[in-house]
Structures are given as structure tokens and as C-alpha cells.
């Protein structure tokens, strides 16, 4: 590997390393939830190396456990990943790889690796962002896949010791992030309020995948309308 590319790759690995703890934490939860939901090991592991997108994987897994329709699962996962369009748009001008080679950083472009890439690029614009992203992404990929397997195996060992309701595990996994979001981004509290209202209303009538789609679309529309009315703040 070219020394400059290697330096960028190593910078990505270094900057991405602290994030492996949360990746490992959720990798274990992911594997554990898959085992608890009765999804075969092969498919749980395959989700981690084929999809490699934490939240979309979780939704896919949860909806599979809930026996939802396959088309609905696909739609929810795709909607959830739409935010990655923005990441591509942000990185478009600073990427140096050409042609089909761009697919490699695209595969490794998660929320975390995107963040690392933009931070490193801000600190040292001379480092090639493609290789920073590959370094951070590969680091996270390795731990995400290893801990998915570990989580699945952990369930086989400790199933009787930790028999938790699936819906509780899901809600508890994300409640902290919801609280953090509400504290850190006061401008998003309107979105959270509208989404809560829609969730509480639809929860009486409909299944989880329909509810998820409607809530996400409603939240997005609300944010756009509010921005259009109030202007760019």
C-alpha cells in the first residue's frame, strides 16, 4: 500500500478504535436478540457482514422476529438507511477513488466511519478520506461481526439466566439514545413530540412495521414543514 494511503488508513483505525466499545455492545445485543428470537445463527451473522448497518439490521431482525411481511421489512430498512444519502453527498467532493472502486468505501460507510472520516479530514485534509473511511470502517466491521457471533453464543450459554422480553430489550436498548437526543438537540424536540403522539395513536391499531414507517415519514415531513415555515435556523 502507498505510504500516504497507509497513513490515512492507520489514522482511520486509530480514530475509529474508541467506537468499537459501542459497536461491540450493540453487536452482542444484536446477536443475543437474534438468538432469543429464534433466527438461525447463519442468517444473524449474515446480516452483520452483508448489510453492515446497525439500525437497519436491528429493525430487520426485530421485524423478522415479529413475523412481519418481507416487503414491509425491506421498506423500513431502506427508509432507515436513507440518511446515508447525506453522507455520500457530504463526502462526494473529497473522495479521491474513481469509478467502481468507490463501492468499497460505500460498503464501509456507517454513521461512525462517516463521522471519523469527516473529523480526520477536518484535522488533516492531506490524508485521503477514502482510506480513512476504510480504516475506521474495517475496524468497526471486524468488531461488529465478532461480537454478533459472541452475542449469539452468549444466549446459548445464558438463555435461562437472562430470559428477557424481546420488546423490553429493544426499548431499553434505544431509550438512552432517545434521552440523549432529546437533551442534546432541543431543536428536535418537536419531532420527538409529534412522533410520540403518532406512536401513541397508531399503537392501538397497527403493527410495528407500519407504525415505524408512518412515524418516520411523519417526523421527516414535520421537520420539513417547520423549516419551510420558520426558515433555516
Amino acid at each position, binding site marked *: 500500500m502507498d505510504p500516504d494511503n497507509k497513513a490515512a488508513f492507520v489514522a482511520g483505525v486509530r480514530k475509529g478504535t474508541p467506537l468499537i466499545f459501542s459497536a461491540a455492545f450493540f453487536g452482542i445485543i444484536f446477536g443475543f436478540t437474534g438468538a432469543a428470537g429464534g433466527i438461525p445463527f447463519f442468517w444473524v451473522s449474515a446480516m452483520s457482514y452483508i448489510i453492515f448497518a446497525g439500525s437497519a439490521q436491528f429493525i430487520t431482525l426485530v421485524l423478522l422476529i415479529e413475523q412481519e411481511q418481507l416487503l414491509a421489512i425491506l421498506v423500513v430498512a431502506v427508509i432507515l438507511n436513507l440518511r446515508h444519502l447525506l453522507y455520500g453527498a457530504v*463526502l462526494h467532493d473529497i473522495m479521491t477513488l474513481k469509478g467502481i472502486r468507490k463501492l468499497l468505501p*460505500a460498503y464501509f460507510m456507517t454513521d461512525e466511519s462517516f463521522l471519523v472520516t469527516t473529523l480526520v479530514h477536518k484535522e488533516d485534509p492531506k490524508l485521503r478520506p477514502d482510506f480513512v473511511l476504510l480504516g475506521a470502517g474495517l475496524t468497526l466491521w471486524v468488531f461488529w461481526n465478532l461480537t454478533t457471533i459472541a452475542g449469539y453464543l452468549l444466549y446459548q450459554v445464558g438463555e435461562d439466566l437472562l430470559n*428477557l422480553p424481546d420488546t423490553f430489550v429493544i426499548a431499553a436498548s434505544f431509550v438512552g439514545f432517545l434521552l440523549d437526543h432529546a437533551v442534546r438537540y432541543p431543536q428536535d424536540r418537536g419531532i420527538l413530540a409529534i412522533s410520540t403522539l403518532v406512536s401513541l395513536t397508531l399503537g392501538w391499531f397497527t403493527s410495528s412495521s407500519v407504525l415505524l414507517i408512518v412515524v418516520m415519514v411523519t417526523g421527516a415531513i414535520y421537520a420539513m414543514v417547520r423549516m419551510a415555515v420558520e426558515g433555516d435556523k
Partner: protein
Amino acid sequence: MSYTSTELGLLIGTIGLATVVIRAIFLFYLPKSADHPLIKRGMEAVPAAMLVALVVPFTLFVDQRIELLRTEVYAILLALPLMRLTKKYAYGLVFAVLIYLALTWV
């Protein structure tokens, strides 16, 4: 499970492919119209709405009915101030599970 291996394989493969395409599409080509602030704001709002959709119904509803007097609800509610005080927001599951186990044990 009622899904066949073929269905699971196709689903996971399609989501994986769609994920790469979504991530790659603007790396390859960025139209000016996609750069609109309103569209960006709408996409930015999706994760926040998604968090609510994952937490609120899964916490409060059981079989499309609100049931508040449950150990799971108490555990999640009690975990909130703990996370706020310690600022360990990523550890919601750890806090909630420990509280759940303690309440179940009591």
C-alpha cells in the same frame, strides 16, 4: 419461523445491496436538486422519529393495548434518571436490565 431460507437470503441480500447503493449513489453523482436544505432536514429528522417509534410502543403497548403496570415499564422509567445523572446514555439496556432483574428478584 415461517420464512424460508430463500426468502431470508433474498431479503438480507436485497437490503445489503440497497444499503450499498444508497451509500454509493451520491459518491458517484450528486445532482444539485438533492442538495436542497428541506430534503436534508427531512432526512436528518428520520433517526429521531425512529428512536421514538422503537421506544414508545415497545415500552407502553402489549398486543396493541397500553399496559403501564409492568416491571418492564418500571425498569425503563427508573433507568432514565440513572442515565441522565451518569450521562451514560449508551448503557440504557444495562441499567434497565439490572433494575428489571432487581425488581423481579424482589
